[in-house]
């Protein structure tokens, strides 16, 4: 057995460490090798889980209550595979991104960028491009570690690792806006971690174990468990930026360099979401209630409406995409009342909503990464990302805007995109469970999404407009990764059967799954 799951964590750590230690231009090579090998390991893991079912491992040989266990079921592996593909796309893009001038901000006075990526001897200063690779590798490793860990305290450490790596990446360019955004993000995430940790403490005091599986088997109920669940949920919702706890997200995601923005919106937010889903449907299922689930659904619905309106109002492209993330995160949480305790345990639509939400997370991962990377191209090539000054730029980089449009279709949920599959499953579930109000929200959200995507495309497609300056040429690999990610968000809708079946492996709805198959 090759234990691919261990390598999914180890490879990025080794490459990240080597990149930290060696630095310079070698770090880019190490980062690329890391990205490639991690992707391979991730797909070996997919194959392993597909063939053998749920994979479990006791670290250090110490079994669960004493030691820490790793566990890869369909859901974990699904997230790891998504991270791998999106991560590979981002890595390929980043190779050339940090070599472009003048970088994402129109601030030529900053002296630090001189020599970035031009191969000059730069021993005396830290360059953003040099720090990017090790930090990105650590971010990737911490994502995979989170998806695999089966221990609630280990998950806390993983969350902190993820936060610090994200903040260090946000402030990479050392610009004022990003330092402010990074600081606000750090404080918000720190507060979320503390709420989560308090929940862990209460849960441990109640159950005496930290392992997720053992906690799930204990079928916990009672005041302390409910309070613990509430604290952990609020902490994670803060990290997942569910309305009204999204205040830190737009600035943080939009002021970071494009490959970082893409990773934050496509992957990091999903990690908190993933963890919440896991806890909610496995550990806190018996302690949950319809009222709480409906409240979360309402917050999600509000996020969809307000986030989309804010996105339409934004004057800067990256800000628009960041607000779009706020809205799309809302969709993910509409899944909770649909898959939760509203129905009876044997209602199949609960499982449909659960897979629908996760498929939506997948499609958003690909589409949003593509959009942020596209915005990065536009910003560094035009020197600005003002939505109302994009006129005519579609002629300069048609493929970029084509990708933007395809990704937008997936966000809107138009067939045959992956977004459509996710949304369709959630819609069916809403109709079957007679919770029609969620169906209305899902449809209205799609229309609003169409609104802001249309604004960008209609601006860019205007003809015969003078452009301020000749845009710089774009390296082909960047265009390719933007396009590839967008196309994948479409293709995954055409071939949804296998991924959906994969999600069933070890899913917390075992009774439902067997009924579906009969």
């Amino acid at each position: 057995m090759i234990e691919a799951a261990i390598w999914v964590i180890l490879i990025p750590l080794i490459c990240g460490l080597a990149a930290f230690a060696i630095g310079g231009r070698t770090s880019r090579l190490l980062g690329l090798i890391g990205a490639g090998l991690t992707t391979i390991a991730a797909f070996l893991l997919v194959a392993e889980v597909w063939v053998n079912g749920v994979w479990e491992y006791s670290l250090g040989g110490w079994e669960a209550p004493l030691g820490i266990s790793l566990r890869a079921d369909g859901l974990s592996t699904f997230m790891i595979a998504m991270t791998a593909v999106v991560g590979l796309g981002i890595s390929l893009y980043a190779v050339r991104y940090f070599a472009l001038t003048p970088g994402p901000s129109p601030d030529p006075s900053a002296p630090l960028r001189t020599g970035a990526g031009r191969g000059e001897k730069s021993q005396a200063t830290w360059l953003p491009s040099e720090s990017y690779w090790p930090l990105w590798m650590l971010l990737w490793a911490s994502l995979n570690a989170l998806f695999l860990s089966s221990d609630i305290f280990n998950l806390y450490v993983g969350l902190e690792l993820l936060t610090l790596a994200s903040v260090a990446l946000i402030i990479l360019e050392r610009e004022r806006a990003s330092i402010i955004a990074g600081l606000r993000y750090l404080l918000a995430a720190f507060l979320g971690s503390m709420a989560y940790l308090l929940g862990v403490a209460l849960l441990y005091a109640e159950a005496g174990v930290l392992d997720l599986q053992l906690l799930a088997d204990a079928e916990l109920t009672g005041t302390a468990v409910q309070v613990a669940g509430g604290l952990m949920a609020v902490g994670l919702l803060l990290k997942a930026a569910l309305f009204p706890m999204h205040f830190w997200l737009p600035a943080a995601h939009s002021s970071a360099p494009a490959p970082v923005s893409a990773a934050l919106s496509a992957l990091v937010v999903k990690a908190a979401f993933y963890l919440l889903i896991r806890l909610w449907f496995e550990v806190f299922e018996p302690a949950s209630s319809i009222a709480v689930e409906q409240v979360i659904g309402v917050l999600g619905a509000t996020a969809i409406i307000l986030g989309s309106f804010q996105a339409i109002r934004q004057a800067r492209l990256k800000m628009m995409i960041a607000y779009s993330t706020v809205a799309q995160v809302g969709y993910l949480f509409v899944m909770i009342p649909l898959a939760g305790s509203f129905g009876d345990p044997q209602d199949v639509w609960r499982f449909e909503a659960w897979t629908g939400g996760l498929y939506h997370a997948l499609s958003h991962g690909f589409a949003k990464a593509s959009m942020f990377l596209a915005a990065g191209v536009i910003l560094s090539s035009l020197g600005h990302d003002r939505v109302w000054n994009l006129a005519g730029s579609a002629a300069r980089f048609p493929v970029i805007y084509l990708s933007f449009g395809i990704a937008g279709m997936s966000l809107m949920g138009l067939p045959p995109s992956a977004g459509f599959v996710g949304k369709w499953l959630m819609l069916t579930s809403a109709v079957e469970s007679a919770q029609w109000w969620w169906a209305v929200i899902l449809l209205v959200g799609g229309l609003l999404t169409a609104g802001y995507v249309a604004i960008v495309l209609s601006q860019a497609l205007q003809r015969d407009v003078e452009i301020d300056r000749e845009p710089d040429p774009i390296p082909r690999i960047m265009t390719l990764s933007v396009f590839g990610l967008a196309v994948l968000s479409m293709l995954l809708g055409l071939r949804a059967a296998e991924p959906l079946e994969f999600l069933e492996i070890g899913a917390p709805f075992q009774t439902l799954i067997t009924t579906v198959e009969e």
Partner: protein
Amino acid sequence: MSLFLIYALAAVGLFAICLHAIITRSHLLRKILALNMMGSSVFLLLIAIAYRNSVEETADPVPHAMVLTGIVVAVSATAFALALARRYHAETGETELSDGDGST
């Protein structure tokens, strides 16, 4: 009243005070102080739980290890936040985060 209950109640009291301070105090240092103290309140609760779980005068070492990990994580995050706050202050002279990005 047991030793566990005394310190556990103190811990949750500290947590609530810190939450209030994080929301209402706008000075960055004050926010960072409150977050750090919030961390130590959770650590106090964990240590109290370890005491409660004692077997024959030996306290539960698992929460102890968790707290030790937590202390190092807390100081790392605090120090990083301080570095960012000081850089921000040095650049702008501000001591508070302004709501400049127009979020709701």
